[in-house]
């Protein structure tokens, strides 16, 4: 299958390992990955911070960039959520664009959705000999409703010791610009999330969103906990030797 990668601006700039892993994983599974160069950012930060007017050109760009492709994947529940639930709204003043945005959204998948629902695979042949806990990010969980798909993928990874995260469904406190505008509350939420991660005894905390992992990982690093954050794609891309 020919799959267009919607890399997301955050993974592109700060977490290329998650994006590279997405490419290598899909290629290993026998698919062709293309990277449309004109893509930049889906505009979620602008939309969620109250700048829909500024986001409109970004929505237009995203739609134009990805509408030639039958299947689009992103290693982010949050960015796929924005495409699926916000792009048409931002484009409401331009019905033609809104309709195109809806069509692109219908063909855009978060990585675990693509693997399980579209490609029909749960065992991707990965090997990752670590104790891992999974944080279901809010937008994967409650906007996209990915359910237990990421867990099913992780359960098939050889060598991986999957431990359940207590109070997993509580937000980590990132929330985009929330983490800056309400930094104190965000930090209080993060403190509890980190406590739960540490309680599992895992050495790796994984999730399907680089943004939440940046937040959780930033806190775990600041406290020198020794627990790493690793994107789900990187675990699924890992193989023995």
């Amino acid at each position, binding site marked *: 299958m020919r799959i267009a990668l919607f*890399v997301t*601006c955050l*993974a*592109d*700039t*700060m*977490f*290329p*390992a998650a*994006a*590279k892993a997405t*490419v290598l994983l899909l290629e290993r599974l026998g698919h062709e990955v293309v990277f449309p*160069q*004109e*893509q*930049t*950012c889906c*505009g979620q*930060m*602008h*939309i*969620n*911070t*109250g*700048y*829909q007017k*500024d*986001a409109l*050109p*970004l929505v237009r*760009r995203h739609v134009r960039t990805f509408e030639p492709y039958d299947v689009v994947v992103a290693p982010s529940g949050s960015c796929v959520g924005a495409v699926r639930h916000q792009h048409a709204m931002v484009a409401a003043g331009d019905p033609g664009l809104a309709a195109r945005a809806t069509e692109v959204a219908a063909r855009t998948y978060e990585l675990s959705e693509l693997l399980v629902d579209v490609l029909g695979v749960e065992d991707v042949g990965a090997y990752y000999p670590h104790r891992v806990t999974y944080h279901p990010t*809010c*937008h994967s*969980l*409650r906007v996209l409703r990915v359910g237990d798909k990421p867990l099913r993928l992780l359960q098939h990874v050889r060598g991986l010791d999957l431990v359940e995260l207590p109070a997993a*469904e509580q*937000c980590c*406190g990132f*929330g*985009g610009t*929330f*983490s*800056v*505008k*309400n*930094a*104190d*509350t*965000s*930090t*209080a*939420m*993060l403190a509890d999330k980190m406590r739960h991660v540490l309680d599992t005894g895992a050495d790796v905390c994984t999730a399907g969103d680089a943004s939440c992992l*940046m*937040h959780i*990982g*930033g*806190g775990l*690093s*600041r406290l020198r906990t020794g627990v790493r954050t690793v994107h789900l794609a990187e675990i699924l891309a890992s193989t023995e030797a």
Partner: protein
Amino acid sequence: MSTFLGMPVRAPRGVGHLRGDQSFPAAAKEALGNSQLRRNLQHATTTIRGKSGRVIAELPDWQELRSAGSALKAYTMANLPLLLTQLEEKVTAAGGVVHWAADANEANQIVTDLVARTGEKRVIKVKSMATQEIGLNEALEAAGIAPVETDLAELIVQLGEDKPSHILVPAIHRNRAEIREIFLRAMPGVDPKLTDDPPVLAGAARRYLREIFMRTKVAVSGANFGIAETGTLAVVESEGNGRMCLTLPDTLITVMGIEKVVPAWADLEVFLQLLPRASTGERMNPYTSMWTGVTPGDGPQNFHLVLLDNGRTAVLADEVGRQALHCIRCSACLNVCPVYERTGGHAYGSVYPGPIGAVLSPQLTGVEDNASLPYASSLCGACFDACPVKIDIPSILVHLRNQAPHARTEAAVMAAAAYTMDHPRLYASAQRAAKLARIAGRRGRGLPPPLNGWSASRDLPSPPDETFRDWWRGR
């Protein structure tokens, strides 16, 4: 009184409790430092989430009930003029008197005048969000009338000279030890040997209020539902203080927001299932009272219903925001909100705290008067899932953020970022040049404002050697 058609009229300033003294982040910072508050809230919200989840799981048709509740509310809002007129006719026909209050000042005046006409100097009150919203207690006190809150939590708040912090449990921020201290300090005639055992505390409230119930001639209540088809009002409660107020006095004055009207009697079959399970986590609350006008020989012989706008029509005018009026005040969204659980209700500055408050208060007042509230959420979506009438709170928050006034510097940064991201070559060179780390210094410490909010507690990741784009090009 005059109004321009089409111009939404907000809740007036200078009266009531819809606007806080400080922004949410500033108030939240103070609250977060109160360890007792944090502990009380965490315990209480965890308890109620568990209870509610268990009784909701007992119903095989919970999602169908939510859908029906949501549709009933949308139907109600679309037919509000007809339904309110019908409610007025039915209440009037059953011996009640209906008053219309365009805002808080008018509502306070109507109620104060009605009490003054009875000659009474004291009223008993059933917990009511609408009367708190309009600041009725202050208005009554200014007229020399003493309002006595009879709900246990409201009594704790009133005796503690405190502010409510939760829609359902206004004293949720207090634990039993603090409640005991408040009673010992402020409850007339309290037993000095009072312990902090909850049944003992409840017993103290029973003794104190019993005399007052028996001797007070006027009661003020809110209403959970007002049935247009029949003129029936309903108050849902637990303790029996509601029954006392609705049964014993000669005069009953009920203040009801216009959005609380329910089309038909049979529609209660939906809301009476949704509300208790979402709210207190009970299959049914201990007491629900329903009355239609005046019943000769039974209960108050004078009944007044005050229908309140106070900004609700402005909410109704917003196509996205109007669903905030669907709220049945269960407070499920507060109990699941990770922000509320840590800051408590006072940080929101309004009588409507939590996620629903963050969308309702700014719409009632105009978003410029509560500009920080739409941002008091990480948009995690737990509130939407918990809402028994399926109010899409995250979408309203995003919608209101788009209406909120923005700081000039932030707006400039956002515009510049959008411009850069709409020009891939600029974007790519910005990626290479900026290398966030250079501004950030060592691992994100010492970022300039406002980004220092991040670096205060979190490291930034080490910048990668190459972006994904670079890697792809080099393959």
